[in-house]
């Protein structure tokens, strides 16, 4: 259809995005800011959909609207335990010294200058001759890639090496999070209504993750979106007071963390031993190998996001059981 008809819609969408971004940054109350940010994520997901980038929209929906909202709420909770009124001190925001204001203006001006330069260069880049060699090369080779979704073909086949290193980045992030120490005990056990929500939401999220993983071969979706959805299931479990958040203990957890990089490497090196290039899948096997790698990557990604959400190494089961018992006794009083 003719997209100019959507001009009014586009204008309003743009306005709401800019307005929300400004509002969530300008707000001084952290909790209001977080809620505004969640709304921002929702609208942004719609915008990506409008731009016909469903892959990005899926990722934005999972990360922006779902996980980061939960993460930020948890952060605010940690910052001001017990009360939402401690930071509602209006004087604090007006007592800033003049120097700070000047500095803020300087930074703003600098950012504006940088943005201007970028825009100027980008304008030149976009007005120069269009380069369609790469998109054409991708569509020419799509048949041999084993999948029909060009995004998955680029991520898991043509530029699989990038993705391997990205998974290594995620592994590094988890190991870095582990060095922060153990997690604090989680939330209170949930009431019956909340438990009712969890009882259907978690299985549906897991099913959806599986669906997104499978559908990634020929339509938008894939390991990242599936992993984020799976992580969302873990977040829900965490909110109901299960501090193991569905993650296993010790060795198995380490296997899950390393699965993405490990399986990727295993496939690459096996192919090398069989006389093919590193990560050069035989076309007949490409689809299956990509699904295998994506499954492992999904588990690693979900574990990484979850561990980032809880912000440390989960406590071992023994400690956990003791904490739970303690909590039960407390709630009885």
């Amino acid at each position: 259809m003719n997209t100019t008809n959507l001009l009014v819609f586009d204008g309003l969408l743009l306005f709401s995005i800019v307005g929300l971004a400004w509002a969530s940054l300008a707000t001084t109350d952290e909790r209001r800011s977080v809620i505004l940010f969640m709304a921002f994520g929702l609208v942004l997901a719609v915008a990506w959909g409008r731009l016909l980038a469903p892959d990005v929209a899926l990722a934005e929906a999972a990360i922006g609207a779902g996980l980061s909202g939960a993460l930020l709420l948890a952060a605010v909770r940690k910052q001001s335990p017990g009360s939402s009124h401690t930071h509602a001190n209006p004087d604090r925001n007006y007592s800033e010294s003049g120097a700070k204001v000047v500095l803020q203006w300087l930074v703003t001006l600098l950012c504006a200058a940088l943005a201007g330069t970028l825009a100027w260069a980008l304008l030149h880049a976009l007005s120069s001759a269009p380069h369609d060699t790469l998109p054409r090369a991708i569509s020419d080779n799509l048949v041999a890639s084993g999948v029909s979704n060009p995004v998955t073909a680029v991520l898991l086949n043509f530029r699989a090496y990038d993705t391997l290193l990205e998974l290594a980045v995620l592994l590094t992030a988890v190991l870095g999070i582990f060095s922060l120490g153990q997690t604090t005990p989680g939330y209170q056990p949930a009431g019956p209504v909340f438990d009712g929500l969890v009882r259907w939401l978690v299985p549906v999220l897991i099913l959806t993750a599986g669906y997104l993983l499978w559908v990634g071969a020929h339509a938008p979706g894939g390991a990242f979106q599936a992993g984020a959805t799976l992580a969302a299931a873990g977040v829900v479990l965490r909110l109901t007071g299960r501090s193991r958040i569905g993650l296993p203990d010790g060795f198995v957890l380490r296997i899950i963390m390393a699965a993405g990089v490990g399986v990727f490497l295993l496939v690459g090196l096996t192919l090398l031993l069989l006389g093919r290039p590193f990560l050069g899948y035989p076309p007949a096997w490409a689809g299956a190998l990509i699904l295998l790698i994506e499954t492992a990557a999904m588990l690693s990604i979900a574990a990484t996001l979850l561990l980032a959400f809880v912000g440390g190494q989960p406590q071992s089961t023994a400690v956990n059981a003791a904490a739970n018992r303690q909590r039960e006794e407390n709630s009885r009083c």
Partner: protein
Amino acid sequence: MTELLLLSATGLMLSLFLGLLRVLLGPSAGDRMLATQLIGTVGVGMLLVLSVLLDEPALIDVALLLALLAAVAAAAFTGQQEARHD
């Protein structure tokens, strides 16, 4: 049909703006969360309409994910409140 869908998309946009106004006005956290809930539902509706308008079936998947994760966000919010008051 196209005109009707265009109308619905713009109408949903109006609904979104009303919800945003409530987010800004508050006054309580519960009010804001209600409004976010509305914005989520509006977003789901928009994606569904857009998926037909732009002929992109994958947007239905995005809507599904958004619907499920809106529930997670609400759970995170209320879970936090629970923890605070018990």
